[in-house]
C-alpha cells in the first residue's frame, strides 16, 4: 500500500467516523465492517492464538463504541483507533501476566505447602531422637499408614512388640514435646 493509499484510507475512515458520530447507522456499519479485518490483522501479528486475537477484536470494537465521544474530529482517526487497540493489547498482556503469577503464588506460597513442609521436618527431627525400633514403628504405622501386622513384618518383630513400640515412642515424644525429658 502506498502513502497515498494510506492517506486516502485514513480520510475515508475519518469521514465515516464523523458521520457515525452524527448518528448515521449505515456509515457506522460500513466503518465497523472495514475495521474488523484491520483489527484482526493487528492482533494476530502480536499475540498467539486466533481465539484470543478475536476476543481482543471484539473488546476493541466495544471500546470504540462506548468511547466514541473521545474521538476528536480534527485529529487522525487511525491514531485514535490504534491507541485503543494497543491499550487493549497491553491490558491483555497485563492480565495474562497477573494470572500466571497468581497461579505460581498459589502453588508455592500456599500456607498448606509451607506448614506441611515445616511439619515434616519437625516430625523427622523428633522421630530421629527416639530409639530406632520405636521411631521405625511410629513412622510405619502412624505416618505411612501400615497396619500393625504389616509394620511388624517389615520390622521383623512381633505384633505386640510393634504395638508396644508405638505406644512407648508416642509417650516419649509427648513427654519430650512437653519438655519433661531432655
Amino acid at each position, binding site marked *: 500500500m502506498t502513502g497515498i493509499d494510506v492517506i486516502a484510507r485514513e480520510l475515508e475512515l475519518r469521514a465515516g467516523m464523523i458521520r*457515525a*458520530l*452524527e*448518528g*448515521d*447507522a449505515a456509515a*457506522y*456499519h460500513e466503518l*465497523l*465492517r472495514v475495521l*474488523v479485518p484491520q483489527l484482526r490483522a493487528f492482533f494476530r501479528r502480536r499475540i498467539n492464538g*486466533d*481465539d484470543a486475537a*478475536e*476476543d481482543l*477484536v*471484539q473488546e476493541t*470494537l*466495544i*471500546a470504540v*463504541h462506548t*468511547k*466514541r*465521544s*473521545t*474521538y*476528536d474530529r480534527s*485529529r*487522525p482517526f487511525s*491514531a*485514535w*483507533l*490504534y*491507541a*485503543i487497540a*494497543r*491499550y487493549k493489547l497491553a491490558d491483555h498482556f497485563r492480565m495474562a501476566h497477573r494470572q500466571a503469577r497468581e497461579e505460581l503464588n498459589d502453588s508455592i506460597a500456599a500456607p498448606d505447602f509451607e506448614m506441611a513442609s515445616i511439619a515434616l521436618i519437625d516430625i523427622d527431627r523428633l522421630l530421629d531422637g527416639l530409639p530406632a525400633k520405636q521411631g521405625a514403628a511410629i513412622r510405619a504405622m502412624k505416618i505411612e499408614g501400615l497396619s500393625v501386622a504389616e509394620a511388624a513384618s517389615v520390622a521383623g518383630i512381633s505384633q505386640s512388640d510393634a504395638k508396644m513400640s508405638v505406644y512407648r515412642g508416642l509417650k516419649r515424644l509427648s513427654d519430650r514435646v512437653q519438655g519433661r525429658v531432655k
Partner: protein
Amino acid sequence: MMALRHGTDQLVDRLVLDIRPAQRAMIALRLAVGVTAGAAVSVILLILLVGARPDLANVLQSSRFWSKAAYMVATAGASLLVASRLARPGSSTSIAWIVPIPALLYLPAAGMELMTTDPSHWGPLLLGAGWQLCTWLVLILSIPIYGGLWWAFRSFAPTQMGATGAVTGLCASAIAAVVYCLHCPSDTAVFALVWYTLAFAIAAILGSIFGRRLLHW
C-alpha cells in the same frame, strides 16, 4: 473460529443498532461538571473545618492576594487543559510544558519580596501563619475535586495512566488551593510558591499512584 467470527459480526450488528448522535463537547462538559461538584464540596469542607478568613473583604483589593490566586487559577487551568488532552486515546500531550509556566511567572514576585525584605525577616515571610496547615488542608480539600475528575474520566479513555493521574491530582490540588485562598492568611509569593507548590507536587505523585488503579477502563 467460525463461531467467534460470527460472534464478531453479531457484535457489529448490535453496536450499529445502539448508535446515537454523540455529544460534541462531552469531555469539556463532564470535566466542568466534575470539577464544579468537587469544588462545591471543597468549599463546604473548608467552611466546616476552618472557616473563611475574617479580612476576606479587605484582601479582595490587595494585589498580593490576586497574584496568589492567579498563580493557582492558572495552574489549575493549564493542568485541566492537559487532562482534557489525556482523556482521548492517542492524543498529543505536547502542550504539557504549559503546566509549570504559572509558577515561573510567579517567581519574580517571590524574588522581589526577598529583595525588599531584610534577610533577618525571611523566616516569617517563608513560614507565614502556619504552613503545615496550608499544605495539608490543600491536600484534604483536593480529595473531593479529585473524585469529581475521576467521575468525569470514567467515560473518557485515557491510555497514559501515570501521566493522567498526575495531571488530575495536580489539577485537583490547584483548584483546592483556589478554594483555600478564602481562608489562607498568608499572601506572600514566597509562602505560596513554596508550600502550595509542595502540596501540588504531593498531589501529583499521589494522583499518579492512584490513577494507575482508578482510571483503568
